[in-house]
């Protein structure tokens, strides 16, 4: 069943790619959509059969592959990866649905998107370090091509930058994985059998440093982030949706799974530094976003800021904060996907993303009123207004991390205030005010442009009102992750020493 999540998109990619050219581009889109929705439905079925109380990997599949070097095809799913798999399925469907109908070289385009989706699913499912690494690298190639071929004006620069950065991340990751396995003397790359507790602490810290740098590029964390705004600005809308919605989550997922999961002792050593790093990311991303005039770049920087919360929660590693980091991954995936979609619609209709030139798009007769209203919703969700999923995930992040890193948590809260500042700038300039003369006579907004955004908006509100529907899948797993003895012990220790609890 899990293999189907990888195989169906791959088969779809092959069908779409080798489809006779004579058939209209539309049919390749439809086939791609079907091939993307099957895995999505499968993930939903998977979720319904998933047993949340079981903290082990479920639906495992194991096929020995290259046993000489200890590489096996081993898949599994648990509460950490399940929400991200569903998210990946959903956003792939949305990305394909919202692609331009007249996209050139459509067969190639859609097959690349499908390969990308398959690789991401594979990475989330992999239970073997080397297998994860393989999927992590495979995902680079389609994404590089998608940016380099269907991107904007400076697509070559952005795509190359992305490739170099992420390839560096891959090398670091491979080095750390090899070091992990060889130094700990394990016989295979299997995640489950790896035990690092015997390693000297210094070695662990160095290995974790490698993993942190590798995933820090992917997440991205300041100052390893400059590939992201360029990639977002140059990528087409559906690719931005995938990039922000799912691909960045590979970084945080990897951090939780391989960093915290495999090297808890070293994690404990580095956690204070990580928390500070998270704060820097949050505040730096937010203040950079304030100064942007390109809407897409603003959303991209906001993404950097919001990914910082996940790192904060991961660093704290309390039961609540790890759960919160999963929640924040999903909520950021939904919200940033919505924002990128809407910016994409505005760009498509007005030909501009410039905050300085656009004005008054909420105009009910000649503007984009529904898109504007959804934008207000998305922006407010991102700024953490209650009733939407962004609030509860951020609240849990803060609540969970506060007992371990009170000062850092309070500082990151300032980030949510700054989020309101830049997004209000965006709304006030672009959507409020009198319609600017440059953008009169906008083309019609079709159902096709609205539907994906409406779906995401509904999800954001529903999960915001009923976060339990999200929490219950992951809670046992994340609680188990924080029950690693070292972490649990530290949490107690620290909360007893902090300045906030009783003096006298």
């Amino acid at each position, binding site marked *: 069943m899990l293999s189907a999540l990888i195989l169906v998109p791959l088969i779809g990619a092959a069908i779409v790619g080798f489809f006779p050219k004579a058939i209209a581009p539309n049919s390749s889109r439809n086939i791609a959509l079907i091939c993307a929705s099957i895995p999505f439905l499968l993930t939903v079925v998977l979720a319904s059969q998933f047993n949340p109380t079981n903290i082990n990997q479920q639906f495992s599949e194991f096929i020995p592959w290259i046993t000489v070097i200890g590489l096996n095809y081993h898949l599994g799913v648990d509460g950490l990866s399940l929400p991200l798999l569903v998210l990946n399925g959903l956003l792939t469907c949305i990305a394909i649905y919202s692609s331009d109908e007249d996209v050139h070289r459509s067969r190639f385009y859609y097959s690349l998107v499908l390969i990308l989706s398959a690789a991401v699913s594979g990475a989330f499912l992999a239970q073997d370090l080397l297998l994860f690494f393989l999927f992590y690298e495979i995902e680079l190639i389609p994404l590089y091509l998608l940016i380099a071929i269907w991107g904007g004006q400076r697509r070559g620069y952005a795509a190359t*930058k992305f490739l*170099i950065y992420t390839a560096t991340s891959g090398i670091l990751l491979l080095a750390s994985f090899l070091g992990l396995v060889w*130094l700990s003397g394990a016989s295979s790359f299997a995640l489950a059998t790896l035990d690092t507790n015997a390693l*000297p602490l*210094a070695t662990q810290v*160095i290995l974790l440093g490698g993993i942190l740098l590798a995933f820090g590029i992917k997440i991205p964390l300041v100052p390893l*982030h*400059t590939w992201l705004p360029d990639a977002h600005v140059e990528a087409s809308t559906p690719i931005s949706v995938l990039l922000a919605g799912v691909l960045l989550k590979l970084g945080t997922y990897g951090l939780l799974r391989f960093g915290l999961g495999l090297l808890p002792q070293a994690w404990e050593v580095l956690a204070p530094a990580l928390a500070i790093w998270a704060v820097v990311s949050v505040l*730096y991303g937010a*203040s*950079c*976003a*304030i*100064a*942007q005039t390109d809407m897409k770049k603003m959303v991209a920087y906001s993404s950097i800021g919001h990914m910082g919360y996940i790192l904060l929660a991961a660093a704290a590693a309390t*039961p*609540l904060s790890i*759960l919160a980091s999963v929640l924040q991954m999903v909520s950021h995936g939904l919200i940033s996907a919505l924002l990128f979609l809407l910016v994409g619609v505005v760009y498509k209709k007005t030909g501009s993303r410039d905050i300085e030139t656009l004005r008054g798009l*909420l105009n*009910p007769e000649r503007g984009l*009123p*529904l898109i504007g*209203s959804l934008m*207000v919703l998305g922006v*407010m969700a991102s700024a953490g*207004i*209650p009733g939407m999923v962004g*609030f509860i995930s951020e*609240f*849990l992040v*803060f*609540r*969970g991390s*506060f*007992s371990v890193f009170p000062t850092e*948590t*309070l500082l990151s*809260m300032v980030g*949510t*205030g*700054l989020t*309101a*500042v830049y997004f*209000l700038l965006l709304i*006030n300039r672009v*959507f*409020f*005010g009198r*319609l600017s003369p440059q953008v009169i006579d906008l083309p019609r907004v079709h159902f096709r442009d609205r539907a994906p955004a409406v779906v995401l908006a509904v999800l954001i509100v529903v999960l915001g009102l009923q976060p*339990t529907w999200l*929490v219950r899948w992951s*809670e046992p797993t*994340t*609680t188990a992750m924080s029950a690693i003895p070292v972490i649990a012990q530290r949490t107690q220790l620290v909360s007893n020493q902090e*300045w*906030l*609890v*009783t*003096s*006298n």
Partner: protein
Amino acid sequence: MNQTLFLTSWWVPFYGLIGAILTLPWATGIVRRTGPRPAAYLNLLMTGVAFLHSLFVWKDIWNQEPQILLFTWLKAADLDLSIAVELSPVTMGAAVLIAGLSLLAQVYALGYMEKDWALARFFALIGFFEAALSGLALSDSLFLSYVLLELLTLSTYLLVGFWYAQPLVVTAARDAFLTKRVGDILLLMGVVTLSVMAGSLNFSELNQWAQTAELSPLTATLLGLALIAGPAGKCAQFPLHLWLDEAMEGPNPASVLRNSMVVAGGAYVLFKLQPILVLSPVALDTLVILGTVTAVGASLVSLAQIDIKRALSHSTSAYMGLVFIAVGMEQGGVALVLLFTHAIAKALLFMSAGSVILTTQTQDLTEMGGLWSRMPATTTAYIVGAAGMVTLLPLGSFWAKLQWADGFWNSNPWVIGILFLTNGLTTLNLTRVFRLVFWGEPQPKTRRAPEVGWQMAVPMVSLTVSTLLVPLLLQQWQLLPSWENVNWYAVLVLVLSSVLGLIVGSTIYLHKAWSRSIQLPWRFIQDLLGYDFYVDRLYRLTVVSAVDFMSRLSSWVDRYLVDGFVNLVGIATIISGQGLKYSSFGQSQLNLLTIVFGVSLLGFLISWSFGLLDHWQLFWEAIRGS
């Protein structure tokens, strides 16, 4: 029947929400054929249901003990976010008041916004607004209250920004949102801290915790200040007060609700937090200082305003300042009565101002005059509202302020002085506005001024009657002092301050054109008050420019340092590669040497970092063969 009504009374806030959702087809323009009116009627219907429901429950539970309903919303790890709803005469009474005022304001809006194309959107927002407010009244959980305060921030933003095509409205909406957001974020910090320390966020459990908690003074202070910040933003207290003034750019029916109920919502949360604030003397002192500064400052500022709505809105801040002082002095009970009487009187004043604005098409006080004979109902409403605000006649605020003064008579006599000043200045201002708008000679814009239509007149007159009935209600609730317990000195002080205000207000020279004085000192004061003590410029110089500088700096760093370094490395790589290609050293031996050297260096570094070199002696000895 009664039992069912009681058990479902937590449902009261949802009526407004349902009303808001029902209007969506019209608000989003899916239904165009019918015009926006049906949306308004649906909303009115839902508000009416909410009013009746809460009224029945209120009558029913009049003499009962408060009951608390608990709903589990989210349980995760060690966090239990249960939502508590308190059903007591006070909370249900507040819900009745909110639904009632909302009903009146909505009928009023039918007239006021008759020709507005976005009527449906307005009603959707009002429904949302009302839902959040009545939720706030019933909430017994700090978490829920925080959530609702944030929702009120959002709906204020959308309501103030209702006419979003106008530039002033856009900045007003932005400022309202950001100012309140500052308060909300600080409050969130307090909420998170409390949640970690106390475990539960329900007020009753927080109060229990506060009785035994032993906090370090620093923690208690920081916590107290954070908790104050949220209500301070909502109640438009210094230094988070400017938004309320600017928010007057929004539609008037929303201003009616905002100035009467929303600010009261913030103060109500503060009242609920009182047991926790007591932990920190600094926080209490801060409350008193903020309240004093706002009460006196806002009363002064209102004197120089020439916009009719702004002239009235500053006194809202001033009255909330009095509430802040009361909570700061741990006399929260007297604050509640003042909140109630102020809400009704202020709503009436704003309805009257709205009628004037609609009829004269202007908000400028200097362009008005002589409306008393042309608009009798509006004039009556203004007079009654003004009388309900100050302590001249024994209407609502008279008794509330008497109680307020009585509470501090012995303990802190100096705050009586603040009350004296605030009350006197408010009377002065209300008299001034009355003379400019209703008295005197008619001007071009007020010459042909018919009374407003029934949609606006009916709510206005009903509220006039209600304002006159407030003392009877107070007596019914046994909130009036018995005859022998009246503090006659306090009565004397209060009446004296109002009389003084009235006398000064009616004798002061009010030039029709309100031209700026030619005498420099007088002109300086006029400008100082007219521009709110230049506080907005102070903000622009400090907070706003600091954030602006930060963002420019980090953006510059990002572009030229971080990204610049990355690009430099890229260029350097390309250039060196190109250079090597053409260099005369391009012999294969040399290339091989470079590679060998590079790889050994890398290998050395890696082995060193893994601590493998600790054994280099063994290695060396093995080579020497010894």
